[in-house]
Structures are given as structure tokens and as C-alpha cells.
């Protein structure tokens, strides 16, 4: 069975489309097949770019937990399972504001015992900054520098923890608390 053929483009120097006649029939099936192949190739390219970008910008191997958050301390652990002997840099955010950074290198024998790391030095601890009375939320993020360090991204470790600062526990928050270290809009 022969391929379908369609009218070739019309000479634009003639007047109306309806008055024109095909110059040459052409192989529409081949063109359609090429268009489908091109669409698939481009979809695959964009998909591959998206996955490659994700892997370059984020580290899918971070594991960890935020174990406890109190008005005094925030504890937890963080491991890069792709490099279980490496120390992970973590940042603490209270109520969405940067409150401190440290390296997860404190002893956590339970992490080693659970087989999550090559050694036990993967714990972190922050001193909770001065906060006003009321409920607050702590989140800890692992820092990933990416290839060539052209991007630095934060990935949350575990879940956020809410805690309450009582009036008698409250330390007056310094005026700069809301601005120093906070991510600028």
C-alpha cells in the first residue's frame, strides 16, 4: 500500500489558497513520523535535563531526624548516605528565620548502630536563641553545595517540631534577631 501524500505548499505569489493548486504531492507520512520522533526526543531531553538538574542541585541521599526542640536546645542527626563518612553541614531555622549553622559531628552511637553511617559522629546540637513567649517552630536543613558549588540548596532533615516558650523561660530577643542571618526576600 502506498504512502499517503498531501498537497505541497502553494506558491505564495498566487492569490488565494482556495484558488491554488498543489505544486507537488509530498510524503506526509514521513513528515508525520519525523514530527512524532522529534517530539519524543525533545520530551526525553527536557526530562533528562530536569532529572540531571535535580541531582546537581539537590542531594537525594540526605537522611536524618530532628529529635527534639526545646526553648534551650535543638537536637538531631544528619547523614549523607552517598558519603557516610562525611560530615553534613546543617542550619537551624526558627519560625522560618535563620538561627544558626553547625556541622553534624557529635557522637550518636544509635545512628552507627542502626547502620546509617560509617561512624557515630553525625549528631548536631544548637542552643535555641532568645525567643519571645509563645509557640515556635524549629526546622533543620542540610546544606548541599552541588557540583562546582554554583548552587547551594537546603533540604529539610526529618520533620519540623513545634515547642512553646513559657513567659518565665523567655529571654528577650535581641533587636537584630529578626534581621541578622534571615533570608532576604
Amino acid at each position, binding site marked *: 500500500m502506498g504512502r499517503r501524500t498531501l498537497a505541497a*505548499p502553494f506558491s*505564495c505569489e*498566487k492569490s*488565494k489558497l482556495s484558488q491554488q493548486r498543489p505544486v507537488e504531492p509530498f510524503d506526509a507520512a514521513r*513528515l508525520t513520523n519525523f*514530527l512524532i520522533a522529534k*517530539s519524543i526526543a525533545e520530551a526525553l531531553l527536557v526530562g533528562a*535535563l530536569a532529572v540531571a538538574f535535580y541531582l*546537581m542541585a539537590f542531594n537525594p541521599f540526605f537522611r536524618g531526624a530532628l529529635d527534639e526542640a526545646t526553648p534551650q536546645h535543638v537536637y538531631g542527626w544528619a547523614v549523607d548516605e552517598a558519603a557516610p563518612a562525611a560530615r553534613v553541614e546543617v542550619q537551624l531555622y526558627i519560625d522560618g528565620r535563620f538561627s544558626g549553622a553547625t556541622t553534624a559531628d557529635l557522637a550518636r552511637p544509635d545512628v552507627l548502630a542502626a547502620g546509617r553511617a560509617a561512624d557515630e559522629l553525625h549528631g548536631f546540637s544548637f542552643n535555641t536563641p532568645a525567643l519571645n513567649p509563645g509557640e515556635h517552630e524549629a526546622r533543620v536543613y542540610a546544606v548541599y553545595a552541588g557540583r562546582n558549588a554554583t548552587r547551594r540548596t537546603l533540604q529539610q532533615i526529618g520533620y519540623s517540631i513545634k515547642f512553646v516558650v513559657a513567659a518565665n523561660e523567655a529571654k528577650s530577643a535581641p533587636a537584630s534577631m529578626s534581621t541578622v542571618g534571615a533570608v532576604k526576600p
Partner: protein
Amino acid sequence: MSSTQQQQNGAAQQSGAARASIIEGRRLALWEIASIVSSALIAEWTILPFAGQEKWIGAIPVLLAFTLMFYSQRLRKENARELGWRFDNFLKAARLLALPMILTSVLLVIVGWLTNGLNNNLLARAGGRSLMWLPAWGILWGLLQQHVLQAFVNRRAQVAMGRGWPSVLLVAAVFAVLHFPNPWLSLATFAGGVIWAWVYQRAPNIPALALSHSLMTLVLIWTLPATALSGLRVGFNYFA
């Protein structure tokens, strides 16, 4: 069934088949335009944010687009003369281009004068690059863009919508979309797209259109404030 009835039925079937073929041909032409546009948008919008320094990846959708264009032109047996690579109608195309170009240039000079754009540093307007690149690079770039825009998009638009304003506006809209989100450049390319598509439908001549493209780019850079053109950046690069 009588022979007259059979003849009538046969004619009706042939007419129906021809009509279906035309509709299918129009859809295919629109698909070709959409495919070229999607390739350009992928190159403009996804390569820089996703591929970062690996800008060579942008060559893949561009290569696919050019392969489609040349393959389609070969399948449709379009020759260089039909596409507009000729000089016999150069003067006709130049005459058609002259008035719109002069009017647009005068308008741009007035806008530039009113906005103090004429006093700006010329190098800054060229995105910090030397102005020496403009004449040579401008003509090459103009030839390339006009070939894609007219010898492919315009011709397919005519297959889909016929010759006239609908296809002219489609070509201009495609040209403007490829310059998003740069607002002034999109506006300028829409206006330029209307003029060039209209001229191409009357006198298909790529060299004349490329020369006009290059000259109008120079006038645009020379007259409008550098801040308005944002270094001629388009796509994701506009935000970079």
C-alpha cells in the same frame, strides 16, 4: 445504480478525499510551526536554568528544529528560489520594505529623543559587546532568522491559513513569542514580524528581509534606552 449516479458518487468521494487531504495538510503545517516554536522555547527557557554551564546542550533542540525544517522543505520539494533565496525580486522587496522601515525608524528616533535614549552609551546598548559585531553578525543572524521565520513559518502558515492577514499575524505572533519576556523587544519583533511577513507574501526575498532585519536591529539599539532593551536578552536569560 445508474452510471450517472455512480459518476456522481465517485465525484463526491473524490471531492471529500481532497477536502480531507487539505484539512490534514493544514493541521500538519500548524504542527510543523508548533514543533519549531517548541524547540526554540526549549532552547530559550530550559537550557540555561537546567543545564547551567553546559550551554552546548542548547544545540540539541536547535539542531532538531533545523533538521525538521530542511527535511520538511526537501519532502515538499521546495527549492531555494521558491523559499526566497533569489535576487530577481530584491528591488521589489526593498521597495515594499522602504516605507515601513522609514516610518518605523522615524518613530523610534522620536521615542529615543523623548526618552533620552539617543544619548546613551552605544556599547551598553549592545549588551556590552563591541558594535563591530553588529553589521556582520546582524546580517548573518538576519538571514538565519528570516529563513526560519519566512521560508518555513510563513510558508506553513500560508498552507494552514492561506495568504493574507491571518497568516501574517500568526508569523508575527510566533516571532514575538520567541522574544518573551522582554516586553519592548517582543513588541518590536511583533511589529517587524508583521512587516516582514507581509512583504514576504508579496515578494519572497530572504536577503532583502535579512538586510532590513539587520538595519532595524541597529536602529532599535541606537534609539531605545539600554534599560528598555535589556541587552536584547530573551527567554530565561532575560532574568539572568
